[in-house]
Each structure stands twice: as C-alpha cells, then as structure tokens.
C-alpha cells in the first residue's frame, strides 16, 4: 500500500459492507502479482501529468490491459454497468467507495485506458443502441479495446460545435473526411469517438452526429504532436474517405452535440477524482518532496502546502458529493471540479518551482523529475475545455446569467 495518501473517511466500509473484505483480498492479490514485474516495466520515475509516448509505453499499456481484465473478472472494473453486459449493477456511491479503496493499492497505471472508460464509454452507455453497447462496452471495460476521442479540429477548439469533418451517407455507410487534433493516445487506440458533420445544411449543432470509428480502418492516419514537455501525448488524426458503418452511430442522427456533451462532462468529473492528474501516487510523491527538502519548515512554503492540501481535499470531497448536494450547480459540477483541479495543479507547480528553484529545470537528480509536471500543468487549462469555457458554462448554465 502507498504511504502518505490523502486521508479518507471510514464510511467506505459502510457503503461497501460485506463486499469490502472480498475486494481487499482481490486487490492485495493483484498488488502482489503486478509488483513482481514492476521494476522491469516502469520506464523511469518521472512525475508527469500525462501518459506520454516513449520507449516503455507499450509495456505500460500491456500491464494496464492485464489489470483491467483482472478487475473486470472480479466485478470491480465496471461497478455501475448493467449486469447483462458484465457490469456490477451497483450505485454511484458504491462505485465512488470502490475508487477510494482502489487508491490504497499500488497497482499499475491505467491512465492509457481512461479516455475509453471515462469519455467514450459514458457516451455509448447514455446514447448508444443496444447493439453498439453490446459490441463496445464490455470490450472497453475488459481492457480489450482502447478508446480515443476525435472531437477537436484545427479550427474548432473552444467552439467545438463548429466541427467541419464531414460524413456523407453512402448506402449503409458514411464516408468521413477531415482532420482532428489533440487526440490523446491516438496512436495506441483501437477505436475513436468521432464527431462529424452529417448534415451541412442543418444548424451548427443539429448538423452533427457521433460515431465509433476503428482506428485501423483504411484512411485513418495518426501523427503524434510534439508538445512543451518534449513528449507526445497528443496526436493529429487525418481522416481520408474513411468508411464507417451507420451501425456505428452513437445516438440519433443529428444528436452528435448532445452525445459530445455527455463525454465532456464525464471527462471533467473524472479529472478531479483520483483517476485524474492528482492521483494518490503523485500526491504521496509531492509530500515526500516537501518533507525531503530543508524548506519544509519555511512558513512561506507551509502556506502553499496548506493551500494545496485544502484544494486536494476539497476536490476529493466534491468528487464524492451526491448530485442532490450540488444545488443549482448540479448540471455544471464537472466544470466546477475542473476549475478547482487546474487551480490545484498550478498551485502544485508553483510549490514545486519554489521548493526546487533552478533544480527543476536543470538535469539534476530527483528534482528534475518534476519538470514534466511543471511543464504539463498548462495543458490542463485547455484539455477538456478551456478555463474560459468552463467559467462561461458555470455562469450561464449554473448561475443563470444571460448567454
């Protein structure tokens, strides 16, 4: 078990009840199983905010898939999923409690599966036909299929609904052409959730539909993008007369915008939970960094540490909140959580820079490991919708100010 993880309530036991013992047994066994191969597979000890492509990437992915399959078999991969597809049929509360227990165990990272599980799957689950649900949901939650998101385009960033990638009908298929960008994990994904314009004559939003596209389909080209951290977590994806069956449509014809909103809001909520950038793993390493330096008794640093701690605890408490407790902000909870998250990540970045000084940007042992975190922080303000978009959403949909 990790040390220094943030504190947690003990009502986990109350929610999970008699399942708890069995869960802990399963997770302990998995911890042991994966620990044996950990030293080999973990490429280095860098602390980054994103999974980036690199030498050890495929090993990490393989371990993530193995873990996901094992959790699925134990009924712990998809607690809220319908029982007929292999889900657990549990409540949201149960699922949140399970996440807390999962946080306690030192298991391989599943970060490369998150887009599929927390962006693609919710869209399919909420809007997809029974057929498409059956085809993709169990496979995603079993770790057999890795998903990515094909939403943004060079000229459609914040204004996502202006997407130009076109899908024109051809018999039972659609022929898709266009360019997508900022696709996390595009190069390792099996399927993509594709937002395309199916009716150029309809309104901006009404002209969109959503599809599942196989990333190995002829006409799909993935080109990784170099980013500020030096790594490549994102890709450009070119779609050149790609044939997608109509059976792969998620939701109604013209309902693409509504499906996209489901995905985006699920993404925001996942980010603030332990699944997002502020994993227990990162937090415990942060605590260790603070404790190791000679400045941990510096009052100026102490103020920053307290602020970070408050934000992290608040974020976890919000992630565990019941929908009813959100009041008028219930429909913008993801945006609230995401703004708190990015503020927290910035605070951590500043804390690290203040603690390490120039050693964070020079190739110094230990401290340089944080450079990717510091350089990665800006991306979180943009990914999943910019801060400006989140504030517009809160003000207009949450606080009732005019659009």
């Amino acid at each position: 078990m990790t040390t220094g993880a943030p504190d947690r309530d003990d009502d986990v036991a109350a929610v999970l009840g008699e399942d708890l013992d069995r869960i802990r047994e399963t997770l302990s066994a998995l911890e042991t199983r994966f620990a044996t191969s950990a030293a080999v597979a973990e490429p280095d000890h860098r602390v980054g905010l994103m999974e980036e492509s690199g030498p050890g990437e495929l090993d990490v992915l393989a371990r993530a898939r193995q873990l996901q399959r094992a959790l699925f078999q134990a009924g712990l991969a998809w607690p809220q999923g319908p029982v007929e597809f292999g889900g657990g049929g549990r409540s949201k509360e149960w699922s949140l409690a399970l996440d807390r227990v999962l946080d306690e165990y030192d298991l391989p990272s599943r970060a490369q599966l998150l887009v599929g599980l927390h962006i693609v799957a919710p869209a399919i689950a909420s809007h997809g036909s029974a057929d498409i649900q059956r085809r993709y949901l169990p496979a995603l939650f079993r770790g057999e299929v890795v998903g990515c998101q094909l939403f943004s385009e060079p000229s459609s960033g914040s204004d996502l609904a202006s997407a130009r990638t076109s899908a024109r009908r051809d018999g039972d298929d659609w022929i898709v052409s266009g360019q997508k960008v900022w696709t996390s994990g595009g190069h390792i994904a099996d399927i993509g959730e594709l937002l395309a314009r199916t009716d150029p004559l309809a309104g901006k939003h009404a002209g969109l539909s959503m599809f599942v596209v196989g990333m190995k389909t002829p006409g799909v080209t993935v080109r990784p993008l170099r980013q500020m951290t030096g790594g490549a977590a994102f890709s450009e994806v070119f779609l050149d007369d790609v044939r997608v069956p109509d059976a792969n449509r998620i939701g109604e014809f013209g309902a693409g915008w509504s499906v996209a909103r489901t995905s985006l809001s699920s993404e925001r909520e996942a980010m603030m939970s332990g699944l997002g950038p502020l994993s227990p793993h990162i937090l415990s390493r942060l605590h260790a960094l603070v404790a190791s330096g000679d400045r941990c008794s510096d009052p100026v640093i102490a103020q920053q540490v307290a602020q970070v701690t408050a934000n992290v605890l608040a974020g976890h408490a919000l992630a565990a909140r019941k929908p009813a407790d959100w009041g008028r902000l219930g429909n913008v909870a993801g945006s609230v959580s995401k703004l708190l998250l990015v503020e927290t990540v910035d605070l951590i970045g500043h804390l690290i820079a203040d603690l390490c000084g120039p050693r964070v940007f020079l190739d110094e042992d230990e401290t340089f490991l944080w450079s990717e975190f510091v350089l990665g922080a800006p991306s979180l303000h943009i990914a999943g919708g910019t801060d400006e978009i989140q504030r517009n959403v809160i003000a207009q949909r949450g606080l009732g100010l005019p659009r």
Partner: protein
Amino acid sequence: MDLEISTDEIRRGIRDYLADHDCLADVRSIADADRSAPGRRPFDEAVWRGLAEDLGVAALSVPEEYGGLGLGLRAVASALSEAGHELYPGPLRSTASATAALAAAPTGGGARPDVADALRTIASDGAVASLAVPAADVRGGCGVTLDGELLRGTARAVPHGASADLLVAVVDTSAGTSLVLVPPTALEQAIRRSRGGIDFSTAYADLIFDGVPGTVISADPQQVSHVLDMAQLLAAAEQVGVASGALDRTLDYIKIREQFGRVVGGYQALQHRCANVAVHIEAAAALVERAAAAAESGDTEVLARSALLARAAASEVSLFAADTMVQLHGGIGF
C-alpha cells in the same frame, strides 16, 4: 430520523423564517444606531426566540435526554450557513459553539448536573450562550485563569458576550488549559463591556472576571482542542453562508442592472468573476461538509485537519464574495 431530509428541512425552515424577518434590515438598523451613538444595540430578541425556541434551532445538537434533537454537526453547520446567508446578527453561532463544547464534555454515564442544566436551558429556554476562546496567535486560555474555583482576568471580544446567559471558556488552570463552564448565576457577576467596531452582524463584549465561580468540565488537552476545532468548523460554515448570500445578491443585481444598453450580467468579465466565486464557495463548502462528517463520525484527527483548512478557505471566499458584491454593485455597493 433520516438526517438527509432533516438537514434540508432545517435549511428551508431557517431560510424562510429569516427571509420573513429581513435580517439585512436589522443589521442596517444596528449599524445606523451605532453610528449615531457608538456602542452596539443588541440583536432582535423576538427573532432570536423564534429561531431558538419556535424553530428549535438552538436544540439541534443538544442530546435528546436534555430536550434536544440530538443531531450532529452537519445539521448545525447547515443551520449556520443559512443564518450566514441572511447575515443573521443574533447569537446563533456563539450558542452553537458553546453547545458543541457542552455536548462533547466527558459524561461517564450521563452529564454532570451543571452541564445537563446548561444544555437544557439552551434547548428549551432560548438561553444565549457563548464560547470564549484564545486569540488566534495565542496558545493557552482566553485571558482568564482559574484560581482555586474562582475565575480572574479578561476574556476579550467574546461574541455576544454582553447578552450571554451562560459561557464556556477556555481557561488556564493549574491542570493546564481547560474548559470551564460559567453558569448563569455566576456569569451575572462578571463585568461586561460592550465593544464597538465595524462588524454589525455580531456584537462583541469584553468579560471581566474578578473572582467569579466557574467549574472545569474538561481538563483533557485533546478535548479542548477538539472543541476549538468544532468552533472553527462552525465559523467556517457561517462564512460559507455569508459568501453564498453575497453571491446571490450580486447575481440578482447584475441580472437587472443595465449599462451600455444591456444587463451587466451579460459581460464575460463579470460572469467569470461570479463563476470563480462559485467555484471557491463549493470548495469551502466541501471542506466544511468533510469536517462536519468527520466530527459526526468521531474522527477527531480528520476533523482537526479539515476544520482549519475549511476555516481558511471559508475566510478567503467570504472576503472574495463580499468584495465581488461591492464591486459588481458599482457605486451603490460602496
């Protein structure tokens, strides 16, 4: 009793009651009275009685055996948030803090008779209580020492100290810092000096003790610091309410105020500022919820940590929300 429903009922009950009694007007009239003749006039006695006795808010966290509802700090925190939302100027928080201290006192098969009496009078008689705590930068007591069985010294700026019927004080004794109950008959012997100032939503008084009897209800240092943590939590809950009231009033105004031919609430700069206030209110509220839940489940360690973080966050957001309210009201806000 299903706590969830209760909490909502409590919130609604208090909000409706206080809205009917226009607290803000009361605060303004207190301020006006003070400006013409400095020295604060007390809160409205009838509103307090209605709140404490008719609505039973004072009894929320008093154990059932002493005539209370036996609810935990989540209910009390909710009540204080509502009172803060309306800027209620009476002794709800001071009484709740003292109640928390009394209810937490070690019982050992039933509370001591004086503690039980104090709890009963709070639950049933609308008694005003307060908690005298040390200043933020001071370790130890509130400026008062217990010398034998008599209290000596001055507790400065005690919330609603002039109106209090009974007091719990953090006091230096030969056994270390302790919690001391000053029951009504004893408190009458203290000299009370009302303090002026610019906070018209809470009256303060210095209480001067020159040989006033008091009884130790706990000398356990952990108990003392647990009580101080609960007081911080309750203050934070009230501040979150103040912040959310300020935001609501701001939203109401900027939805109707027009400049440049449109409502100013349509400007992105104002929308984003309000969104930021809302985010930080939710963060502070989440910390309060967390601390209150820890208090209820008896996890004093989590309470200790989260109550102080909640208080810090609530202080900041209440200033931020109030400043936003002033700014977004333009000249009339000032």
